[in-house]
């Protein structure tokens, strides 16, 4: 203790896994803090910079995982790292998925591309405590089959009772599944729509069309949550970079409910 909230804790990278051509999942351990699904951490590459990443491992795991897409200087540096390298982590920050709301209800997870990263800890946590929750369905879409993340876990999820619906924008190779944007498979899950809690994450334009389609299909607005992303520098509501419409994405989000999203200013709001 005594360190200011801006100082990261050094941790070592244990494992690096290639998820897709531009995304890697890094595992660091042992985890420096506990968290709830949907929260994020600020990851520092010493000497390069810091960026927010959703924690994509389950809270019961002893390690911490982040799925990181190669985009800018920090993410490129992480892609060039090896197991044993040291990075800095601080967290957990933000409001995670509303687990309390999900008790005894059906849950639908809708993800697009790398947007599945904050949904995975939720899915795994729900499966670990399945007696507390209803049916679980997942609608997951990516641009192409090789860009679907966590492909090697799909089989296990289905075995554990998840209704899994996949789609790609463009088919490739031996893909025999649905082709189309993720809104085209939203009607497939067999759930109690009015009572289902929906959690979604993906590119803003995807969230926009998904939210519209969900309401059309009969899902209730007060049960729909989305995880948004923003540039962040502190993660604790002090630097101003993620401030939109009176809310900080790092403190009041990144998980926002439908009505909160409607209040956000044009620009950050997917609408």
């Amino acid at each position, binding site marked *: 203790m005594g360190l200011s909230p801006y100082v990261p804790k050094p941790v070592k990278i244990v494992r690096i896994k290639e998820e897709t051509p531009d995304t890697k999942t890094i595992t660091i351990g042992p985890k420096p803090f506990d968290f709830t699904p949907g929260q994020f951490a600020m990851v520092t590459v010493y000497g*390069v*910079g810091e960026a927010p990443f959703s924690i994509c491992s389950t809270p019961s795991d002893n390690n911490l995982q982040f799925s990181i897409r190669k985009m*800018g*200087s920090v993410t490129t540096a992480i892609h060039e790292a090896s197991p044993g390298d040291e990075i800095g982590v601080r967290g957990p920050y933000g409001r995670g998925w509303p687990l309390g709301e999900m008790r005894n209800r059906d849950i639908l997870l809708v993800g697009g591309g790398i947007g599945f990263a904050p949904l995975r800890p939720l899915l795994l946590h729900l499966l670990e405590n399945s007696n507390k929750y209803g049916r679980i369905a997942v609608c997951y879409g990516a641009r192409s089959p090789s860009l679907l993340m966590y492909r090697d876990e799909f089989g296990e999820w289905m075995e554990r009772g998840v209704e899994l619906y996949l789609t790609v924008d463009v088919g490739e190779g031996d893909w025999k599944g649905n082709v189309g944007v993720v809104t085209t498979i939203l009607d497939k899950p067999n759930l109690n729509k009015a009572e289902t809690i929906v959690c979604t994450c993906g590119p803003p334009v995807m969230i926009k069309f998904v939210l519209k389609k969900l309401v059309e299909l009969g899902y209730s607005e007060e049960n729909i949550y989305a995880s948004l992303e923003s540039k962040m520098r502190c993660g604790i509501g002090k630097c101003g970079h993620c401030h939109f419409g009176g809310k900080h994405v790092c403190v009041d989000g990144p998980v926002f409910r439908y009505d909160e999203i409607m209040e956000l200013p044009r620009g950050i709001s997917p609408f």
Partner: protein
Amino acid sequence: MSSPEIELRKLARNLLERKVVDLVIGYEDSEAGVRPCFIKEPGEVEKLVWNPDCRLSLVRYLRGFKEKKVGIVAKGCDGRAIVELIKENQLDRKNIFIIAVECNGVYKPVKYGSSKTRRQMAEYCEKCEVRVSPIKDYLIKSDEKALEETIPKGDIEDLDWLSLFRKCLRCMACVRSCPFCYCTECSIEGFKPALVHRLVDPVELFTFHLIRAIHMAGRCVECGACESSCPVEIPLTRLYHELNEWFRENYGYVPGLNLEQAPPPLVFKEGEKP
């Protein structure tokens, strides 16, 4: 109301009514002082003013209107900036209607909390040799008398440049107000990978200004936009003037006077000494 102002408004109205230009960039008065204005409708021309507080070079705004035909109020230094920018392929001569106004110097800005009461001419106007733009589409003559001259701070060697640069806040106001700083990503602003950091090391304050001075050498028309925007009044124009003098002495080159004369860094003459 002075007659240059009346003539300016008449001209602007004419240009807009006849659709010779899509908009006129000039100066307007406001409670915050004289500031740039962008006039699209002939009815708005009454806002235009011309007085010794029309200090900020408007040429910097031309880069936002490259697709449009723009009329611009230009002092001598502003016109020189336009000439030099045309040579650097940043502006298209046929899209600009240059309203050249004869300038007798601008006042030094009086900023927040100043204890000075008498207005003085800006230091960078003292050395000005080009009172009227070298290229023009219309000339508005002014019979104002020259402003009271400022007391020079001394020769360039007398200034303690290190302690002046130490005051720099890296606000980038000098870069943003300069007609010649048109790079979409400034090389010395600190973007990754950073050539010059903004926050990390105070030594970089000197690096920033020295690199900037070299980028300005032989291009700067000493309009003083940088110096008048600077919140801590670093006399940048004086530094750039010295580098310009080097170009004048060694290459006979003065920026912004001649559309045909190529800037020395772009020219190689056989037999030229390195």
